[in-house]
C-alpha cells in the first residue's frame, strides 16, 4: 500500500511537469490540443493525489503502524475523528492536503475558464501545474508521507493533546482552503499578463476566487483565535505569533484587493495596483507556508526545523521574480485612463484604505521577520513582541475604522460640502453622543472611548445606507419596509453584503477593544471554601476532584460563581495530565455573557487541596465571535453570483432605477 502511495505521488509529479510543459508550449505555439492534453494531465494528477490521500486516510483509520506518519500522530484510544484529522496535523499530511485542495480548485477553475475565457486557459493550467509540481516534489523527495518501518511499534505516539479539539480540527483545512485559494486568482492574473493585459473580465473572474479565499481565510483566522482562547488557557485569542501573522498577512492583502477591485470595476482605475495585490497575496500565502514549516523563527506552532524552508524560499523567490517580472513587462498596458480628481472622494478613500491595509501587512511582516532581519543588519538577533504590533497596528486600525464609515458614503469623483453635510451629520452625531455618554458613564481610557465612538459613527453610516436604500426602493415599488429591505439586499448583494461584513468587523472591533482595555485578572491560591472577588463576580472554590480516564489524570477545581449575591451556578476548571509523556491540557472554566466572560484556569494545586487559580474577566469577547459570524454571513450574501441574462439586453434607460430583476 505504501509503495502504491509513493508511486501515485511520483506519477502525479510527472503529470504535473508534463502539464506545465504542454501548457507552456501550447500557449506559445497556439496549439489548443496541447493545452487540452495538459488539462487532462491535471485531472489524472488529481486522481492520483486522491488515491494517495485515500491510502493515507485508510492507514490512519486502520491504525497501521507500519506507516511512520501514522505512528507519529495516532494512538490506540484516540477518538476516530481525530485519527482522521491527523491527516493534516503533521507536515507531510498537511502538504498532501494542500496539493489535494489545489487540485480541486484547479479542476474547477479549468472548467470555468475553458468555457468563459479560453485564451487564459494555457496560463492558468501552466501556473497551477507549476505550483502543484512544487508541492508534489516536496512530497516525493523531501517529506514523503509514506515512509514505512519494517518493525511496527505496538502503539503510536498519538497527536499532541492540544490538537484534540474540534476548533483545531477544522482550523487547518479552513485556512488551507483560503491559502490555496489564492493560487487561482494568481494563475488567472498571470495568464492575463501573459496574453496581453489583465482586462476587466479577467479581474472579475479573479475577484470571485479572491472573495472565496478571503472568506475561508477569515473563518480560519476566527477558528484559530477561538481555539487559542478556549484551549490554550492564557485568556487571549491573538498573540502575534509568527504563524498567526502568516495567515493574517494574505488576509490583509486580499481585503485590500476586494476594495481596490471595486474602484477598478467602477472607475477603471488602479488596475496596476490591483494586479500587484493579487501577486502579493499569493506570495504571502507561500511565505506563510514557509513560515509555518521552517524553523527560521521560534514559534510555538512550527512543526519542525528542517531543510524544508530552503525549498520553499526558493520556490517563493522564483514565482515572485517571474510574476513581478511579468507585471513590469506589461506595466504600461495596464495603465488606466482616469485621474484621481479629488482628495475627498470615494476613490481616494478606497485608495487610503488600501494604503493602510498594506501598511498593516508591512508592519506585521516586519515584526515577524524581525529576528532574521536584525541579525542580518546588526549581527545580533532581536525580537519584537506583541507591544510592537499593538503599538503600530492600533492607530492604523482606528484609521481603517474611520474609513469604513466614511468611504461608502463619499461621492464618486468629488465630494461637495453639501454632500458631506448630508451624509455625515447624523452618524457623526451618533458617534459624538456615544462618546459623551461613555465619558459620562465613567469610561476614561481615551483609546477605548475613541474606538467605541467611531464604531457608533460607522454603525450610523451603515444604518443610513440601508435606510436610504429602502426608502428609494419603496418610493419606486411601494413595498413594505421588510420586503423592500430584503429585495434591496438581494438586488445589490455585493454592496449590502459588504455592509453586513462591515457591521461584523465593527462587532469585532468593539469586542477586541473591550477585552483588551478593560480586562481584569487575579492570581490567587485558595483553600476549599474560600472565595475571591474579580470584576463584579465572586468566585468560591469548593474543592479539588481527581479522576482517571483512559490514560489521563484529571484534576478538577469545582467552583461556584456569584454576581451581586445572585448564584450563577457551578464552574469547573480542569487540568488533564497525560500519563504517557509529559503533556497536559487545560479546560478552562468559562461563563460567557454578551457583557463579559468569566474565565478561570487551574494553575496549580497542593496535596492539601489548595488550588491556585487564575481568574480573568474579559468584557465583550462574545462580540468577537458574533462579529465573525456576521462577517461570514455578509460574505456569503456577497458571494451569491448575480443572475446573468440569457442574451445581451438593452442598456438600462437613464434615470429609470428599476427595482425589478435586472
Amino acid at each position, binding site marked *: 500500500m505504501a509503495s502504491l502511495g509513493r508511486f501515485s505521488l511520483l506519477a502525479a509529479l510527472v503529470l504535473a511537469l508534463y502539464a506545465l510543459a504542454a501548457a507552456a508550449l501550447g500557449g506559445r505555439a497556439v496549439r489548443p490540443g496541447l493545452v487540452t492534453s495538459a488539462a487532462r494531465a491535471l485531472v489524472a494528477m488529481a486522481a492520483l493525489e486522491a488515491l494517495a490521500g485515500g491510502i493515507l486516510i485508510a492507514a490512519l483509520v486502520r491504525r497501521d503502524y507500519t506507516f511512520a506518519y501514522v505512528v507519529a500522530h495516532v494512538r490506540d484510544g484516540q477518538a476516530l475523528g481525530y485519527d482522521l484529522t491527523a491527516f493534516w496535523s503533521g507536515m507531510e499530511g498537511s502538504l498532501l492536503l494542500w496539493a489535494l485542495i489545489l487540485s480541486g480548485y484547479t479542476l474547477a477553475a479549468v472548467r470555468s475558464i475553458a468555457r468563459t475565457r479560453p485564451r487564459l486557459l494555457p496560463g492558468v493550467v501552466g501556473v497551477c501545474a507549476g505550483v502543484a509540481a512544487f508541492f508534489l516534489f516536496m512530497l516525493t523527495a523531501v517529506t514523503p508521507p509514506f515512509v514505512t518501518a519494517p518493525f511496527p511499534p505496538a502503539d503510536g505516539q498519538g497527536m499532541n493533546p492540544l490538537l484534540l479539539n474540534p476548533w483545531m480540527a477544522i482550523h487547518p483545512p479552513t485556512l488551507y482552503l483560503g491559502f490555496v485559494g489564492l493560487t487561482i486568482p494568481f494563475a488567472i492574473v498571470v495568464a492575463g499578463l501573459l496574453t496581453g493585459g489583465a482586462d476587466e473580465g479577467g479581474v472579475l473572474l479573479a475577484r470571485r476566487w479572491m472573495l472565496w479565499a478571503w472568506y475561508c481565510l477569515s473563518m480560519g483566522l476566527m477558528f484559530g483565535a477561538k481555539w487559542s482562547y478556549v484551549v490554550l488557557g492564557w485568556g487571549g485569542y491573538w498573540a502575534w505569533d509568527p504563524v498567526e501573522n502568516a495567515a493574517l498577512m494574505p488576509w490583509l492583502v486580499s481585503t485590500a484587493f476586494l476594495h481596490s477591485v471595486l474602484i477598478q470595476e467602477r472607475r477603471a482605475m488602479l488596475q496596476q495596483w490591483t494586479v500587484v495585490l493579487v501577486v502579493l497575496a499569493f506570495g504571502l500565502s507561500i511565505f506563510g507556508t514557509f513560515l509555518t514549516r521552517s524553523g527560521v523563527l521560534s514559534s510555538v506552532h512550527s512543526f519542525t526545523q528542517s531543510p524544508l524552508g530552503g525549498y520553499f524560499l526558493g520556490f517563493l523567490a522564483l514565482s515572485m521574480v517571474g510574476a513581478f517580472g511579468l507585471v513590469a513587462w506589461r506595466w504600461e498596458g495596464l495603465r488606466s485612463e482616469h485621474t484621481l480628481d479629488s482628495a475627498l472622494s470615494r476613490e481616494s478613500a478606497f485608495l487610503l484604505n488600501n494604503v493602510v491595509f498594506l501598511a498593516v501587512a508591512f508592519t506585521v511582516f516586519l515584526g515577524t521577520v*524581525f*529576528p532574521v532581519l536584525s541579525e542580518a543588519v546588526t549581527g545580533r538577533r532581536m525580537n519584537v513582541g506583541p507591544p510592537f504590533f499593538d503599538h503600530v497596528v492600533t492607530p492604523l486600525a482606528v484609521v481603517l475604522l474611520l474609513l469604513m464609515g466614511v468611504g461608502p458614503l463619499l461621492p464618486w469623483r468629488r465630494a461637495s460640502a453639501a454632500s458631506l453635510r448630508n451624509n455625515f451629520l447624523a452618524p457623526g452625531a451618533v458617534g459624538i453622543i456615544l462618546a459623551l455618554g461613555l465619558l459620562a458613564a465613567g469610561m476614561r481610557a481615551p483609546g477605548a472611548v475613541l474606538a467605541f465612538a467611531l464604531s457608533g459613527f460607522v454603525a450610523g453610516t451603515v444604518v443610513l445606507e440601508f435606510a436610504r436604500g429602502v426608502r428609494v426602493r419603496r418610493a419606486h415599488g411601494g413595498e413594505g419596509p421588510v420586503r423592500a429591505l430584503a429585495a434591496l439586499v438581494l438586488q445589490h448583494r455585493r454592496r449590502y453584503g459588504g455592509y453586513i461584513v462591515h457591521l461584523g468587523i465593527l462587532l469585532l472591533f468593539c469586542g477586541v477593544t473591550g477585552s483588551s482595555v478593560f480586562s481584569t485578572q487575579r492570581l490567587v491560591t485558595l483553600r476549599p471554601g474560600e472565595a475571591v472577588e474579580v470584576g463584579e463576580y465572586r468566585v468560591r472554590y469548593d474543592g479539588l476532584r481527581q479522576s482517571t480516564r483512559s490514560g489521563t489524570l484529571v484534576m478538577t477545581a469545582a467552583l461556584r460563581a456569584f454576581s451581586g449575591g445572585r448564584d450563577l451556578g457551578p464552574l469547573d476548571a480542569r487540568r488533564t495530565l497525560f500519563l504517557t509523556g509529559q503533556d497536559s491540557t487545560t479546560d478552562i472554566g468559562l461563563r460567557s455573557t454578551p457583557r463579559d466572560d468569566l474565565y478561570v484556569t487551574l494553575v496549580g494545586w497542593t496535596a492539601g487541596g489548595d488550588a491556585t487559580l487564575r481568574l480573568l474577566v474579559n468584557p465583550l469577547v462574545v462580540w468577537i465571535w458574533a462579529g465573525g459570524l456576521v462577517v461570514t454571513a455578509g460574505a456569503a450574501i456577497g458571494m451569491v453570483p448575480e443572475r446573468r441574462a440569457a442574451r445581451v439586453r438593452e442598456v438600462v434607460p437613464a434615470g429609470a432605477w428599476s427595482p425589478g430583476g435586472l
Partner: protein
Amino acid sequence: MIRPARPVAFVAGVVVVVLALAYLVYGGIQQGATYWVTVGELRHEHPAAPHGPVRLGGTVVPGSVAWDASHQHLRFAVTDGVDAIPVRYSGVVPDIFAEGRQVVVEGRISADGVFTATTLLAKCPTKYNPADPQKRVPG
C-alpha cells in the same frame, strides 16, 4: 498607477503617510524589541549591570521544575547543554511546557542571578524529523 489631478498634493500626502508609518514603527521597536541571548552569555556577563529585557532560548533541565505556591511562581532551570540558569516565572504556563522541552523566556536577569521571566513560550516537541536526528527531543 494613479494619476492625481494635483500631483504635488498627492505626493505630499504619500510622504506624510510614509513618515507617520515610520514614526509608528520606530516607536514600536523602541518599546518592544528584545535581544536574544544564550545561557552562556547570561552566565558569564551577569556580574555586569543587567541590560534591558532579553530573550533566552534553551531546554528545561529535567528535575528543576517546581511550583512555588507561596510566591505563586514557577521555578525551573534552562540550559543550552553546557550552562544552566535558574528562572522564575509567574505568568501563564503553556500546556506544552515540560521538562526536557525547548522554551523561550523573555525577561531580565536579576541581581541574585535568577532570570525573572515575563513571557514563557514552549515549543511543540518535534515528532518526526528524519533530516536532523540530533534535534529530536526525547519524550
